[in-house]
């Protein structure tokens, strides 16, 4: 099975966020870029399928600027991906999810693919649009919020679950299709040191991203803001638990207006 997994370099969760000097986007200086939890789940899913279907290959693809994009591709190779392709964004420093999908689609279309995996959403902008846009661009069905995707050789179909707002759905789908993975359901593996060292020398194929079409709609970032720091909780004084409960209910009802 030919599995393609798309990943995106995003700031490490521990990074202190701050706006770039012009204030329109995140300041990428001094930020450590990593695979997001969603993408880790997607890579893990790709590797689990590879291990269960003999003769499978995993090709990891990412769109973005140097050097961060190459770094996360190497991280994915260290986890066990067989091949890597970097869709070089060149001087383009910011891209909305639809632009990213439009840059990825022609490259993915040119690779053998029985399955295209990505995280359900990016760990930074949380757009959650790439899988659907890739599906539309490549004329394939797409499924978001997927957990536990398996290949059933008997029926030659994928079987998987989706976590939707009202509960859980079971699906079957023929290859090829596009799937966005839920995070933290498959306990993604971590790379071993020898694999990390080896990934530093791995070949990363580089292709320049197709330029934006002048006529296509554009998304322009105008402002990136941090919320004002929370000033700390208003503490409730009480003598008995019952008094604490009464005060809190009164506050939720009359002051915060969130009591059901």
């Amino acid at each position, binding site marked *: 099975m030919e599995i393609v997994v798309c990943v995106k370099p995003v700031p490490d*969760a*521990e990074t202190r966020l701050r706006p770039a000097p012009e204030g329109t986007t995140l300041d990428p200086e001094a930020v450590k870029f990593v695979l997001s939890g969603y993408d880790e789940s997607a890579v893990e899913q790709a590797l689990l399928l590879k291990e269960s279907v003999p003769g499978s290959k995993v090709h990891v693809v990412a769109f973005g600027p140097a050097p961060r994009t190459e770094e996360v591709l190497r991280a994915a190779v260290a986890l066990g991906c067989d091949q890597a392709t970097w869709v070089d964004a060149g001087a383009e420093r910011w891209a*909305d*999810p*639809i632009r990213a*999908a439009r840059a990825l689609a022609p490259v993915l279309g040119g690779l053998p693919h029985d399955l295209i995996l990505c995280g359900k959403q990016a760990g*930074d902008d*949380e*757009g*959650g*649009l790439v*899988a*659907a*846009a890739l*599906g*539309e*661009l490549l004329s*394939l*069905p*797409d499924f*978001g*919020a997927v957990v536990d995707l398996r290949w059933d050789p008997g029926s030659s179909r994928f079987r998987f679950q*989706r976590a*939707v707002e*009202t*509960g*859980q*759905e*079971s*699906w079957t*789908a*023929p290859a090829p*299709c596009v799937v966005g993975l839920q995070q*933290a*359901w498959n306990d993604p593996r971590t790379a071993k040191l020898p694999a990390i060292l080896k990934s530093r020398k791995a070949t990363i194929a580089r292709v320049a991203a197709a330029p934006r079409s002048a006529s296509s*709609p*554009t998304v*322009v970032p*105008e402002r*990136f*803001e*941090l*919320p004002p720091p*929370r000033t*700390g*909780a*208003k*503490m409730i004084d009480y003598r*008995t*638990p*019952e008094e*604490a*409960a009464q005060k*809190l*209910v009164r506050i*939720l009802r009359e002051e*915060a207006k*969130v*009591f*059901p």
Partner: protein
Amino acid sequence: MTPTVLVVGELQGGHLASGSLEAIGVARSWSGATVVGVVTGGGSRAAAEEFGRFGVAEAYALDDPRLDSAPAAARVAALKHAAEVSGASVLLAAGTTFGRELVGRMAVAWEAAAATGVTELTMEPGGVRVRRPVFGGRATETLRLEGPRATIALRPHAFALPAEAPVPCSVREIGPAELPPAERTAQRTGVTVAPAGSGPGLTDASIVVSGGRGVRAPENFRLVEELAAALGAAVGASRAVTDAGWRPTSFQVGQTGRAVSPQLYIAVGISGAIQHIVGMISSRVIVAINSDASAPIFRVADYGIVGDLFQIVPALTAEVRRARGL
């Protein structure tokens, strides 16, 4: 020229879901805008008329139950048809799994600028300006969606439900969906609705009560569940709880679990590791109950009670029941 806004109706139990109603409210709040609805799937014909209850006089319906077990892709042609015939320049959908999929596909099929998770938006000449939380609510970005068309998914609960304003709604039916034979396409084979009594889905709930390590033992978690039941809330947990196996990982709120943004979030016995905070910081009102006055959760909470949760929580559950007449 006044803009036309196409609102995608999502069905839940045969009726327009609350997220779709929130989208109607947003569309109606734009002065001069014409609002048109579109519903697809089984029972759409009847559900489309519900748009009229909320002041929408025109709706499109593709009433085809086969769509309910087909991928979202099968609905795109109908949406595009409704958008083109109505002359819409903005499409609004609820920020559900379903809504985001349609927004992503329509961005390509209808050549529209797209955004999801939107909490504020204004219609401007030449586009739509949107604001949306990013990085799990640790930052917000403002984007300008340029061009003649925009397709937008709203963040659940970020907008109020619209007041009822009944008008007759004229429903136009869209021709049958073109679906490939079942063996060549994906099929939904089952649906497990979250069991009644376990509360609403965690990411969709307007109130969430979460328990952490301070609960001390799995059997004590019922204190959290009883408070949630009294409030009609969903139950969440910190990573300490799911790692210990007290509750399944589907309960986990945080960086590696679910991100939630309810109207009210109550953290019980949760210290407030950054891992957890990023999953709930965009909640509108946060209440923390913890025995340690120096716990970091009190720095992000709006209201705090320092005390023994084994005394506070049962008292709170009783008080909530009394206040709600339960």
